[in-house]
């Protein structure tokens, strides 16, 4: 693991699957990331309004607000924020649409944590 800077990276984790949020938060915290887990698009927007994040990891399919919508709003609020999209298998088309809207990259669920971390650090080295 690299990037053990004095400043911990602030990650906004958006997914409506609570179990996933919980375990991902634990693992990422253990890897020295400051994780804010939220379970809905609305919550994500509220958190983004309160504080700034370096990276947002957004699930594409959620009930209240589509991942693409969240991406659009977050990008509008903070264009510097890197957004990484998590998508189900077979929804790559939507993910590519997200890329066109300014997402940094996308990963298909389930993914290796190491892959996710690589993308997160890569997004900070631009």
């Amino acid at each position, binding site marked *: 693991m690299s990037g053990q800077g004095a400043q911990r990276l602030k990650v906004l984790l958006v997914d409506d*699957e609570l179990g996933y949020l919980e*375990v991902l938060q634990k693992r990422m915290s253990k890897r020295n990331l400051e994780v804010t887990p939220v379970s809905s698009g609305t919550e994500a927007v509220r958190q983004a309004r309160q504080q700034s994040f370096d990276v947002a990891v957004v699930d594409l399919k959620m009930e209240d607000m589509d991942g693409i919508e969240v991406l659009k709003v977050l990008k509008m609020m903070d264009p510097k924020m890197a957004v990484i999209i998590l998508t189900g298998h077979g929804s790559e088309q939507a993910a590519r649409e997200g890329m066109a809207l300014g997402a940094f990259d996308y990963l298909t669920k389930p993914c290796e944590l190491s892959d996710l971390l690589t993308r997160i650090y890569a997004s900070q080295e631009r």
Partner: protein
Amino acid sequence: MQTARVRPATYYRTLTRNLVLFVVVISLLPLFLTGAIILYQFKQAYQTKVEENLEVLLNKHRRTIDAFLVDRLADIRVLARSYTVPELENPALLKAKLNLLREEYNGVYVDLGLVDDKGAQVAYAGPYNLTGANYSTAQWFKQATGSEHFVSNVFAGLRGSPHFIVAAKKRFEGRDWLLKATIDFEAFNALVENIRIGETGFAFILNRQSEFQTKPRQEVILASGAWRELLQDPLDQGKVTIVERPDSLDREMIYAAAPLKNGQWIICAQQVVADAFVHLVQAQRAAIAIFVLGGLAIVVATLILARRLVRRIAEADEQKEAMNEKMIEAGRLASIGELAAGIAHEINNPVAIMVEEAGWIEDLMSDEGPLSEETLSEIQRAVQQIQEQGDRCKQITHKLLSFARKTDPTIKQVDINGLVGEVLGLVGQKSRYAGVKLETTLDKNLPRVAASPSELQQVLLNLVNNAVDAINAEGGTVSVTTSQENGRVRLSVSDTGIGIADANLARIFDPFYTTKPVGQGTGLGLSICYGIINKLGGEIKVTSAKGKGSTFTVILPARQDSAPAPTGAPQAGQS
């Protein structure tokens, strides 16, 4: 076990029978009519011809006989005028004249005699000794004295054998004398005896009293009744009257009659109808034989053709049925495909959690030093989470598998409410992401219906899938309602979606008709639903208002003996 796939054998038997009847009637009727008309016309023509022949024959012979009688009378009149009474009283002269006549006319004349006005035969030449015979009381003598010349009826007379008399009157010294000749009956008889018509026809002569003037044959006596009747009519002079009557042996006979000898005698002919019309009967037999054989050929050919045709139809039906099954299967796979994204995502989440929890355990165990109590319980929690998520995966795959297995057309007792639960479970994830609320209003006492569960499941899935798809991004509600009315089960799926344009409403059950974007709909779903419901003897209807939503209603006959199904489905408000 009962399948509603192939049409029953009785259907094809009825089809064969109707085809055969139709073709046979259509082809035999004109044949029969043509044959009957031709036969009738032929019979008319033939009858006319037979009658004409008879008429010609009878007229010819009448003329011959009339001429014979006139000639005989003329002979006697010439003789009477050639000599005076005293000369004629000389038997030698009479004898010489008789011999002359017999030579000339081949023995037609039997004798000659001169009778005075008292009826006494004063001179006689011939084979009998009749000189001095008194005819004053004889019928012929009375009639003969009244006219210049006379031909008598046939009678036995004094000699006891049939003959008739030709006589001419001669005045001498204020007294009337009769020169008379007797005509040989056999010779006269030969004139008509030789008239033969066909196999059974012949002629004879009668007087007005129905007494035979020629030797009658056995057949004539059998027909005498008909003759007596015929003779009551006044026969036209010079005309031939023809009638058909049965004789006393009940044979149909043809009778012809024409007057002779100024209407005193009648020449008659008779013939058995079957003989007269022998050629007609032959033609009729030939025509009937052709009709029967032709008809038989038509019937046999029609039977063979109809069987062949119906077999083809049955094969085509089977093929169509097989195609239908394949189409239902294809439609089923298509609807599963539409669900696939939602279901993939549904299964991705628990899998992702399991992967992460496993990774988390790895993280915890890679820490240096002995595992603390706290770490152990964390590992325990993670393992439990993995188990829970595994169960979740299992449920999802079960749901999908229960639907993805091959279509089974077997008819069973289906609990519609249970089916609603299964299908909504399957569509749940998709509708959640689409912002669609699913609602159910189920009749707890709903009777079961006889149907294939997998086919009915497909109908419902198609309808619910379409309903969810009809709702746009702002979200809406899909309600599934079950109820019963008049022994029928009603299942309706309503949405608050975009509705269906009137122009499209008429076509929505057509195969391959879709308003969904290319690649998102096969256009088979509703057409398959229609086919399945139709096959079950039910109906499927749609009402729609543009912008307000649509309602699809399926009505199925309930099983008569069906008890309400125990409802295991959720009663309301899945979302």
